[in-house]
């Protein structure tokens, strides 16, 4: 069981590359949720990507080069909050393996211990209480495989949704099934990936929810992309952005 900092005053924020390019509103929402709890958020401006795309594709040297650059940017002893179970999993669980032969491995292990996925941090370190301001809505939740199996934060994410009193959470029948994203898997094995995301969107449709909430933008891009392609009227949203809008009645980018 991971230990959480008590009364954290300052945190680093690692926004992730997908959030940066495609879902910056989700990134901002995460920052604002932390700030609203009185936490000073530091966003090192030179950050880019955790290195996972290269790591999973068979290019560990390239992954190491990019990862090392990130590690250098988060040098103070603050917790590092990441709005993605997959990138957080990479930084917490895979960096120690990626750098196992590096002379600075002890330092890197300490870095990895400071990594937290956003919802686990909101729940355990900040004990966040959410006041729902929004109209009634039915949503469903998709967990990324790495949030589920590497970070083990799925219940934290769902507990946040359950705090919202006007939100009905209908769970997927096959919540543990991968959506078929898998980074480059989606383009290296497009037909298998498509079969997987098709099953996922069918499961989502069956819930009767009007919105899909997830904590990972890779899955979000995959599932929303497939739903848009099929002209399904269900929209997808990152958990942080959804929560921010529910409790503040305004978009995170306002």
């Amino acid at each position: 069981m991971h230990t959480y900092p008590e009364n954290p005053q300052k945190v680093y924020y690692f926004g992730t590359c997908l959030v940066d390019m495609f879902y910056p509103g989700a990134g901002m929402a995460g920052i604002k949720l932390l700030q609203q709890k009185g936490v000073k958020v530091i966003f090192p401006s030179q950050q880019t990507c955790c290195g996972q795309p290269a790591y999973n594709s068979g290019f560990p040297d390239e992954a190491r080069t990019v990862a090392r650059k990130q590690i250098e940017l988060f040098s103070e002893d603050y917790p590092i909050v990441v709005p993605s179970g997959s990138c957080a999993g990479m930084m917490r669980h895979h960096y120690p393996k990626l750098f196992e032969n590096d002379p600075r491995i002890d330092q890197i292990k300490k870095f990895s211990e400071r990594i937290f996925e956003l919802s686990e941090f909101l729940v355990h370190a900040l004990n966040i209480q959410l006041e729902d301001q929004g109209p009634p809505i039915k949503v469903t939740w998709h967990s990324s495989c790495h949030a589920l199996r590497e970070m083990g934060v799925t219940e934290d994410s769902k507990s946040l949704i359950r705090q919202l009193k006007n939100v009905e959470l209908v769970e997927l029948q096959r919540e543990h099934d991968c959506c078929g994203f898998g980074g480059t898997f989606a383009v290296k094995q497009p037909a298998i990936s498509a079969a997987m995301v098709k099953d996922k969107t069918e499961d989502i449709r069956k819930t009767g929810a009007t919105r899909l909430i997830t904590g990972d933008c890779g899955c979000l891009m995959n599932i929303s992309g497939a739903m848009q392609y099929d002209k399904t009227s269900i929209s997808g949203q990152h958990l942080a952005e959804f929560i921010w809008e529910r409790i503040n009645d305004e978009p995170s980018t306002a």
Partner: protein
Amino acid sequence: MTNLQPLDFEKNVARALKDKQLIKNIKSAMDTLVLKRKNIFSNTAETEQLRVLGNSTKTNALSKLPELLERLEKKCTQNGIKVHWAETIPEANQLVLDIMKSHQATRLVKGKSMVSEEMELNAYLQKNGIEALETDLGEFIIQLNHETPAHIIVPAIHKNKDQISKIFHDNIPDAPYTENVDELNAIARKTLRHKFKQADVGLSGVNFAVAETGTLCLVENEGNGRMCTTVPGVHIALMGLEKVVEKLEDLPPMLRLLIGSATGQLITTYVNMITSPRKEGEKDGPKEVHLIILDNGRSKIFADPQRRKTLYCIRCGTCLSHCPVYNRIGGHAYGYIYPGPIGKILNPQVEGLEAAGVLATASSLCNACEEVCPVKIPIPELIRRIRNESYSKDPASTVEGHGYKSNWIESLVWKIWTFINTSPRINAAGIKVLAALGLKLPKAGPLKQWTRYRSTPEFAPQSLHELVKQNGVHNE
């Protein structure tokens, strides 16, 4: 006869995805297996402890593999079991044939053995005028239909009852058409009983071989394994060299892990512990027992400490049942008799990357396999290793065919990716350009694949970096 062709994975996948009946059969059967496993391992803390034990048992056994194999040979020999070593598949096949010939035997009954599938033994024996009959019900069905197993544990799982009815009716002389399961079972039993009586030699696999006592342990549910190993006068057991464990006391937890993971049972109907041929004064059992220990690339895998973990596999098949890819394409699409996650790491290492390296691309790295593996094989880590070696020209690489995929375009792409992601200003400028181009980007390469089934991803007009600056978030 085999239905395996040289691996054209893309074609195999396309064919499998189109076969609605196949996918339906696989999915419903895998759901059942997953549920049964979940029920038998409902105590997660206890299961985790057991898996840790399973992992350490295999770590221990493999850490002294040469010594344990020698001890196994010595013990077996003392017990009257004849031990043979086969480095390659042709050698192993030859050994079986020689044993058959030395008894002028022409009929072989077989219990379930994945090693024999690996050897394509049936086809080899048939060519040499010997009838080899599968007696495990699933194997019997697919043999009638000239197929290879679609799953390590449940080889005919891709067929439903109606399809099996037809296979029986078409292939067993005088078998009436019936969709009644009891009647189908009776047809198989009647056919097989007759063959058991006639057979000269029986063949089986080995689940665990105990070095300490020279015991061959074999689990099964149909009793056909017991028949194959006791009725004919000669018994041949086949094992991969990784199947050895050190002590008899290693067996109970390993059996619990294997059986629980494979079929969701506490214990199989039959647990066979074979330690010698028939002794003087005993009324049954074979007069001769042979053990053939096959290498076929295993010692090369063994030599590399990370790759060695591949040899922990106890062939329970649960990684297949839990794999989202296996669930969508079934077993045959993988092109080798070990499909699913274990196949993705085993086949490229045994057959070489040029032949089977493509299998490592068929994973979303969802980690479902690693989560359930009874001996904790880090399958995703090994998939990454295979992917890495596919491109690696590093002479320290150990997988045969390493670097086969190495090409300047892919290398350049990752070099550019590295450059951009270590140059924040260029990264920011690049994102701005992409955002401006947005939907006008040419649908080529990866984007072409992506948009075959999904809408084009839309870049945000402003990146998070820009929003953060606008909102006055501290940057150090």
